[in-house]
């Protein structure tokens, strides 16, 4: 593994220096390398996209003149820093993965990214494709996966609390709006004395991802502090979700430790979260996933592939991105890493429908997540500042949870922060 990676890095370094020489000599003859002759394409992703060496070898077998070098960043934050430091200046990979959290930021520079061919249009769910189309109608992102959310629950803990514990029973139990979801949480707390939800901010995330216009409107108007939906969401989370949550936010060391100890009874679960749970709580038994989500459907996360327009082999890179995000390839990636497909044909495939998850009590995860994806009715409008507003609002919830400020003064602090942006 190590030797393979070092080889890849060496190859990359060699390619980079060769590219430098090539550009120096051949001036700006971009098309030369596209016409034929061996070329090397770099693909940069993060975490686990499911692009194994075997999968990439398939493409290389089909295209003998193409060599693919795959670079994987540890997490999406590293990839984000690298992306914006090099975008438009050269030095990015031929195919760069972008996470949905910072995709809006990348969309600001859509003119620096190559346009996807017309042939791929209509491949994805409407909202997934619409988010990657800029104001001029150019599609610049190839959708990979999405994060339709179901509810993960611990059947043993639910049984102990006197709640239904089978998949269908739990789906009926949670069927309703967020108020109802928190009613059940209250019920669980009365029965056991423990919080049912892992974190209060995941509830905020779930609610906000169902609101079309959250903090800003397409014309640039900032509606964050006046938006009644946001005020309601904040009130609901601070008044009712906080007492029912073990933590304020996710991903802290304590949160992971509690997960490994099996302390959480319920989590809001996008497809990729199944992998997080089974990965960090391997010894915990009783997890299951129900085909239900408060207030309909909701999407959390997912990624795109982009092709920087100043690359050496833009045409070949577009072709590779096209292949990587084709329904067939995405199904292989799903099998490798559980990344739930955003392609319509993949969503309808039998392979997806029959996929099960052994850790989650052999739940038909493919079928459940497909239903959850179909239930997503709102594509939230997220502009480049979305992350900033949402992060500040999450901190407002954290402050109430920590007791640093009360509900009203924490809201006022958030309003002051938003006004200062």
């Amino acid at each position, binding site marked *: 593994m190590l030797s393979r990676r070092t080889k890849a890095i060496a190859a990359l370094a060699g390619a980079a220096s060769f590219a430098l020489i090539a550009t120096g000599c051949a001036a700006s003859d971009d098309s030369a390398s596209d016409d034929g002759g061996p070329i090397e394409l770099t693909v940069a992703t993060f975490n686990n996209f499911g692009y194994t060496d075997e999968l990439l070898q398939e493409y290389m077998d089909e295209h003998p003149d193409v060599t693919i070098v795959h670079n994987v960043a540890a997490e999406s934050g590293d990839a984000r820093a690298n992306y*914006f430091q090099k975008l438009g200046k050269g030095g990015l990979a031929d195919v760069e993965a972008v996470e949905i959290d910072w995709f809006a930021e990348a969309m600001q520079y859509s003119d620096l990214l190559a346009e996807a061919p017309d042939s791929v249009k209509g491949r994805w769910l409407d909202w997934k494709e619409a988010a990657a189309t800029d104001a001029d109608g150019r599609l610049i992102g190839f959708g990979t996966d999405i994060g339709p959310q179901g509810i993960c629950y611990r059947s043993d803990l639910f049984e102990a609390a006197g709640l239904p514990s089978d998949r269908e029973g739990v789906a009926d139990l949670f069927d309703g709006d967020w108020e109802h979801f928190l009613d059940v949480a209250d019920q669980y707390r009365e029965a056991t004395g423990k919080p049912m939800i892992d974190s209060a901010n995941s509830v905020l995330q779930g609610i906000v991802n169902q609101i079309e216009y959250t903090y800003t409107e397409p014309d640039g108007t900032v509606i964050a502090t006046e938006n009644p939906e946001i005020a309601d969401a904040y009130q609901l989370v601070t008044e009712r979700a906080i007492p029912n949550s073990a933590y304020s936010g996710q991903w802290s*060391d304590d949160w992971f430790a509690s997960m490994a100890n099996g302390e959480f009874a319920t989590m809001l679960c996008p497809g990729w979260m199944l992998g997080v749970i089974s990965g960090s709580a391997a010894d915990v038994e009783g997890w299951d996933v129900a085909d239900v989500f408060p207030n309909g459907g909701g999407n959390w996360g997912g990624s795109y592939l982009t092709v920087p327009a100043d690359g050496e082999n833009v045409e070949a890179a577009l072709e590779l991105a096209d292949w990587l995000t084709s329904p067939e390839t995405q199904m292989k990636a799903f099998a490798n890493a559980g990344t739930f497909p955003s392609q319509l044909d993949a969503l309808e495939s039998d392979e997806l429908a029959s996929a099960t998850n052994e850790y989650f009590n052999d739940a038909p995860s493919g079928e459940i997540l497909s239903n959850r994806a179909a239930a997503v009715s709102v594509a939230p409008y997220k502009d480049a500042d979305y992350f900033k507003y949402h992060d500040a609002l999450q*901190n407002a919830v954290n402050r109430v949870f920590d007791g640093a400020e009360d509900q009203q003064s924490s809201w006022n602090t958030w309003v002051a922060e938003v006004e200062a942006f």
Partner: protein
Amino acid sequence: MTTTQTRPPASATEPAAAPPAGRPVRVLGFRQNLSRWDLKLSPYLYISPFFIMFAVVGLFPIGYTAVISLMDWDLVRNSGEFIGFGQYVWILQNPQFWTALRNTFSIFLLSSVPQLIVAIFIAAMLDRNIRGKTFWRMSVLVPFVMAPVAVALIFSNMFGDVHGLVNGILTDIGLPAVPWHKDPFWSHVAIATMVNFRWTGYNTLILLAAMQAIPRDYYEAATVDGAGAFRQFTSITLPSLKATLIFVIITSTIGGLQIFDEPRMFDNTGEGGPAQQWLTITLFLYNIGWGEWNFGRAAALAWILFLIIILIGLINLAVTRTLVRDEGIRAPKARKKQKGVRA
């Protein structure tokens, strides 16, 4: 050509010497000029690599930062629009900046003061005749070898609110758990602990070196006079350490104002806490620059930090001058005497 002939041969050996009055004016040949320039310019040439490097990687970025701080900067397109001093005003009006300033000084005090006291104590112990001297001396330096991020990761885990090692021990012996990630003071204590872990040994070694330079005769004389160990420490060791202590204080001040790794790694978001409990100035700068990609504001904050460090440096200088009185006064007097002689 004719002028070189009038030159007396003796003057070639001392080309820099002034010509005595009344003699014909000597004009030096190219070779002599060269050797004179060599004498005058060489020292500057030898030290120039540092200053050229400093100009490229030090002065230029400082100036460029000043330019960016006056502009609404787009990192990706590498261009900006001039907007004046608005971003400085934004920083100074932002309550988070003042919280960050408070936190920076609080963490600085909580780390430097105990660190110095402990370092002096350990150094005094190591200065005595103990077995395995080298082992103990090298041991205190081990934490310094560890990467700050590794230290921060391990300590952050220990200072977990719920599953942390420290709170686990506290609750086991019946004490209440400490809200490490909620209360500003306790978060500062936790971060200061990481800083202390890393830097105490380093300062100990510097102080130990200074202690070993103190002539042993002083101690012998004091022992003959009947002074105890404590009296010897306060009357001989501490006064002799003054200059070294000031060096240690200055370096830890600079380090304290730039503290970044530890608060950044203190939780998973790295943003300094929901209520800015442990947001330091450099962390605030990082959040603005690399979180929001707002390089204009980040540059303005960098300049404000630069001015703060200069201000602290000046205070340090003033304090140093009054503290190290003996050296501080003797030096200028000696120089004056020399000048007087020359005049």
